[in-house]
């Protein structure tokens, strides 16, 4: 082949072969199998299984809690990233490394630990319930707590490098031109951070939607109230209801992909809008 004569480096065929076999066996064939399995059902059957009241309730719990947790992570992740980049305090390096704990700690461990903390006998739970009458463990609020834990590093680690990259001159220019600190933040800093924040939010959200290990311990798992879709898939599997499990899995995959795609588009829009404005500002100056 003519192509081959241009390649100085060896190993193209070998790498391609191994990578393709690996990906096919683990990803392509299994996903194809999932789609083929769901195609065995008629559209009406598929629709019936996907839209039972229990399934609907589980989507609401899964996506609702994931959304709430991602919002909390968006707000606090931005603050944590800001504090870690801009301020000095003792133990900062250690705390910075510690932010990655949710990536390293197995989810089952996180699950039982959060449950014992937030149960009505736990350190945090007894005060929340005793003082505020707010039950966390074994309610949807517990699911949100677990998903916040899981998602912490995503927002912090996406926003952090962007804050590091912001040139101080931009802020100084804004304040020289008479902007207050709040104005500088709202008009200069936040627009620059927004695309990264949105990415971190998306990643935290996507992770939260699929999360299982940390949630099942704290959720209480009551059908219609605090049952997440992954758990419903498992309970269908345990009843040997393979088609039911398959349909729910397909629904989850599709919703996740659509959400990720739309948030990506939104982000692309945000990034472009910002860069456009940036040029405008430059022209006016």
């Amino acid at each position: 082949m003519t192509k081959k004569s241009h390649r100085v480096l060896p190993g193209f065929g070998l790498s391609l072969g191994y990578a393709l076999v690996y990906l096919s066996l683990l990803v392509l064939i299994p996903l194809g199998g999932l789609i083929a399995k769901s195609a065995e059902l008629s559209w009406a059957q598929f629709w019936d299984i996907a839209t039972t009241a229990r399934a609907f309730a589980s989507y609401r719990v899964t996506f609702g809690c994931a959304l709430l947790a991602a919002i909390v992570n968006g707000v606090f992740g931005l603050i944590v990233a800001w504090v870690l980049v801009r301020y000095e305090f003792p133990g900062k390096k250690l705390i910075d490394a510690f932010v990655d704990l949710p990536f390293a700690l197995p989810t089952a461990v996180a699950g039982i630990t959060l449950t014992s903390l937030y149960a009505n006998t736990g350190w945090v739970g007894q005060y929340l319930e005793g003082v505020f009458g707010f039950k966390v463990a074994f309610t949807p609020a517990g699911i949100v707590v677990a998903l916040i834990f899981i998602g912490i590093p995503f927002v912090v680690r996406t926003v952090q490098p962007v804050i590091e990259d912001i040139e101080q001159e931009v802020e100084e220019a804004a304040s020289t031109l008479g902007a207050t600190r709040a104005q500088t933040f709202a008009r200069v800093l936040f627009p620059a951070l927004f695309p990264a924040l949105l990415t971190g939010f998306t990643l935290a959200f996507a992770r939260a939607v699929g999360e299982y290990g940390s949630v099942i311990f704290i959720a209480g798992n009551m059908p219609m109230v605090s049952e997440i879709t992954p758990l419903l898939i498992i309970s269908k599997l345990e009843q040997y209801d393979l088609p039911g499990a398959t349909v729910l899995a397909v629904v989850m995959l599709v919703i996740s992909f659509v959400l990720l795609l739309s948030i990506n588009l939104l982000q692309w829009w945000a990034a472009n809008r910002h860069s456009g404005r940036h040029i405008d500002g430059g022209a006016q100056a």
Partner: protein
Amino acid sequence: MSKVHRVNTESRPIRWLLTALALGFLFFFLGLPLLTVFIEAFKQGFGPYWGALQEPDALSALGLTLLIALLVLPLNILFGFAAAWLIARFDFRGKSLLTTLIDLPFAVSPVVAGLLFILIFGRQGWLGPWLQAHDIKIIFALPGMVLATMFITLPYIARELIPLMQAQGKDEEEAAVSLGASGFQMFWRVTLPNVKWGLLYGIILANARAMGEFGAVSVVSGHIRGETNTLPLHVEILYNEYNTVGAFAAASVLALLALVTLVAKSFVEWRMQKETAMLGAELPAERVPLAAGAPQPAPRGGNEKLEATRRFSERTEQ
């Protein structure tokens, strides 16, 4: 530090408020849970703790967890190199599709990942009847758990090596080959030394995930005590039996593993930063968009090691 001289910063009360909010958030959601693991594990003293870890079921769960990681990691390392070699060194049709496929497991729920293999190898699956006829067990046995773990950890090492090798370029390898090095010599003497810290970083992350995976493995394991129970699954069983000390004792082993992972990760990050500093201007962060958020070559190092960041740089690039 230039930051000390900043004129332009928040007023002191706001600085304190933000710091308090950030640290308070991290304390309640990260620090307290980690403390709780050890406090609950030692609630009844050291004796019961040690006893729980000496249980044959706990030991076999630990053994199985290590065995799965040991089987999965070498294959994953090979895949990481194959994928990175293809994507960073050659141009071919379907390259971006390949990149997307590598990221796909990140977007799939672990439970769905487990289900995928049940649909193929399970009793009612495509190959189920054939496997039963030949008395081969994949689901509810070790091979299924290895497959599920392979699926979950698939992106980790490749996502680490690809941006690193892209940033380094292929000049050194081409020089080695044109000077007469064999493919193996080139890999061993040039490619591997260049990426060793990035590789180690990927291995650390993949290993943590492989040993800690719960959802996917839980679906395909069948929870047979002493046979198909990994340490995370053992934690679940004990916890559901109200054996709190046992569950948290096993959990403390996993938490220790997580702490070791964080320390190792910080060490590798520090080494990579040092190496980048020595390379100096050779790898400007802006040169390759992927590398800006990628762990190794970015001079600011430190915090940018995560797939979150990497994905970010990719997305902003689009």
